[in-house]
């Protein structure tokens, strides 16, 4: 591989040159093929499966049966809407939680910036499932948090968080917060501090400087952060399973059950496809609202 990987900028001979011109292809081929076979083509199979009819026992055949979509959406619209609402709330919460922190680390972190970033990333070294399970423990009705609050009579004795929407939203917020902090940090860190000085010189208050200078300039960072939290949160099912209760089922849980428990592949893939479509539309609409021509351009930090 090393021979083929060599750059071709220098003219060393016609043969090498021709070979060199192909280098890009050789390098890109395995990765490109892998993604085509295991990402692009499966998407087509997902679409194909969602249009089939049948059941597990008799098999599924292709009938281009679009009404599976309407049927499953009407059956599960509650869970769909709930997932979107949770995702919106969680995204807003992560922005609120992450911004001041990212701002402080980027502006005042000094030499310890990377240490702070490392601490933000620490949770990633512990399995996602295990972390979520710890919240089950921390938030237990008589655990050390609620138990203490109850002993102090700050909350009623029948108050509980686990198995409520609040617990699910808290779990999601916790799990996806780092995805918001990092892009925000990158975009704030990139700001020229002289801009703030200029704002100060022009008699802007600190708040004004923040709102009128820093915030607009970090919109791309917010966009990237939203992209990295909203999409996974809307399709999450682990938090609802481990921390939720009655009436906290998300669309991810439904898809999981339909595929793996009921083996109802057509309905399950129709829902997966709908979910992806809804998220794509959301991303486009959001990009529009930001006033950018092109989604990808908005995503460019």
């Amino acid at each position: 591989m090393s021979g083929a990987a060599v750059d071709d900028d220098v003219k060393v001979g016609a043969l090498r040159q021709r070979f060199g011109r192909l280098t890009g292809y050789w390098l890109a081929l395995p990765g490109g093929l892998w993604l085509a076979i295991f990402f692009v083509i499966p998407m087509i199979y997902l679409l194909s499966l969602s249009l089939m009819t049948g059941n597990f026992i008799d098999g599924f055949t292709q009938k281009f049966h679009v009404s599976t979509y309407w049927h499953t959406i009407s059956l599960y619209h509650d869970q769909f809407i709930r997932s979107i609402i949770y995702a919106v709330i969680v995204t807003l919460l992560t922005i609120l939680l992450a911004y001041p922190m990212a701002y402080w680390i980027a502006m005042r972190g000094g030499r310890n910036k990377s240490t702070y970033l490392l601490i933000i990333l620490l949770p990633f070294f512990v399995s996602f499932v295990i972390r979520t399970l710890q919240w089950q423990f921390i938030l237990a009705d008589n655990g050390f948090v609620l138990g203490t609050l109850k002993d102090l009579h700050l909350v009623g004795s029948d108050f509980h968080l686990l198995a409520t929407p609040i617990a699910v939203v808290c779990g999601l917020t916790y799990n996806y917060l780092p995805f918001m902090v990092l892009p925000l940090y990158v975009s704030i860190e990139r700001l020229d501090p002289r801009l703030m000085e200029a704002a100060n010189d022009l008699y802007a208050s600190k708040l004004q400087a923040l709102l009128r200078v820093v915030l607009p300039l970090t919109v791309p960072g917010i966009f990237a952060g939203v992209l990295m939290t909203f999409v996974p949160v809307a399709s999450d099912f682990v938090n609802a399973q481990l921390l939720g209760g009655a009436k906290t089922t998300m669309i991810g849980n439904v898809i999981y059950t339909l595929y793996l428990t009921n083996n109802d592949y057509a309905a399950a893939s129709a829902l997966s496809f709908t979910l992806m479509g809804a998220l794509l539309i959301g991303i486009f609409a959001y990009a529009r609202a930001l006033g950018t021509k092109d989604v990808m351009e908005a995503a460019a930090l």
Partner: protein
Amino acid sequence: MTTTDTTPVTRPSVQRKPKRKWTYYILPVYTWAVLFYLCLPIFVMILFGFNDTKGRYNITFQGFTLKWYKELFAIDGLTNALVNSLTIAVIVTVVSVVIGGALGLALGRYRFRGKGAVSLVVFAQIATPELVLGTSLLSLFLTLNVPRGYFTILLAHIMFCIPFVAVTVQARVAGLDGSLKEAALDLGATPAVAFRKVTLPMIMPGILAGALLSFALSIDDFVTTSFNAGQTVTFPLWVYGASRLGIPAQVNVMGTLIFLFGLVLAAYSILAGRRKKD
């Protein structure tokens, strides 16, 4: 080396009065509070790995013990799952670093037809929810009647790791100074030598970061794996299944050890980065 770095660069700070108001401390205190919040479950996990629990449930702290460290491999199913996860992660890391690294190099360095489309696919894959990655692969395997198991987990993990390695390496390559290699070639180095001595060292940080990322992604993946695992059990799947009955303390211990391993790696890479800066 310098173009894409974002490690601490001390900037001329905004002029401030020497006497600090209390409001100055709001943000740092807030930041530390959030950091504490982020790490709280880890502390709990580590703590309960030392819990001398008597019953079946690891719920209340009943005293300090090291016995779970001694009996780390007492549960066969869990040990198997961990071995599966580790071997999968290693294979996935190696394969996706080679394939993804080549792709990143191609995207960052070379011109070829279809480059835009490949970039788009890479971006689209990163933006696709994991759930859909998992279900679409399952659709493929179902339709082609491929039995799910260890092998399909490998295929899936490599698939979602390639784009991350590619993007990391591409970002690195884009910041490279191409003339360095030209110089090497001018000075009579063969292309192979030039690659090994010049290009590789320069993209090495990108490759290492990509490897670390792939390993972390693979060993922690739950969503995609759960759809394509068949009956093969990985560490996160085992923990998820066991969570219905209460997870044994060994899970906390294994979690702690993996955590420490990751911590050491990351700390090392930060220290290494700093040393170069200084």
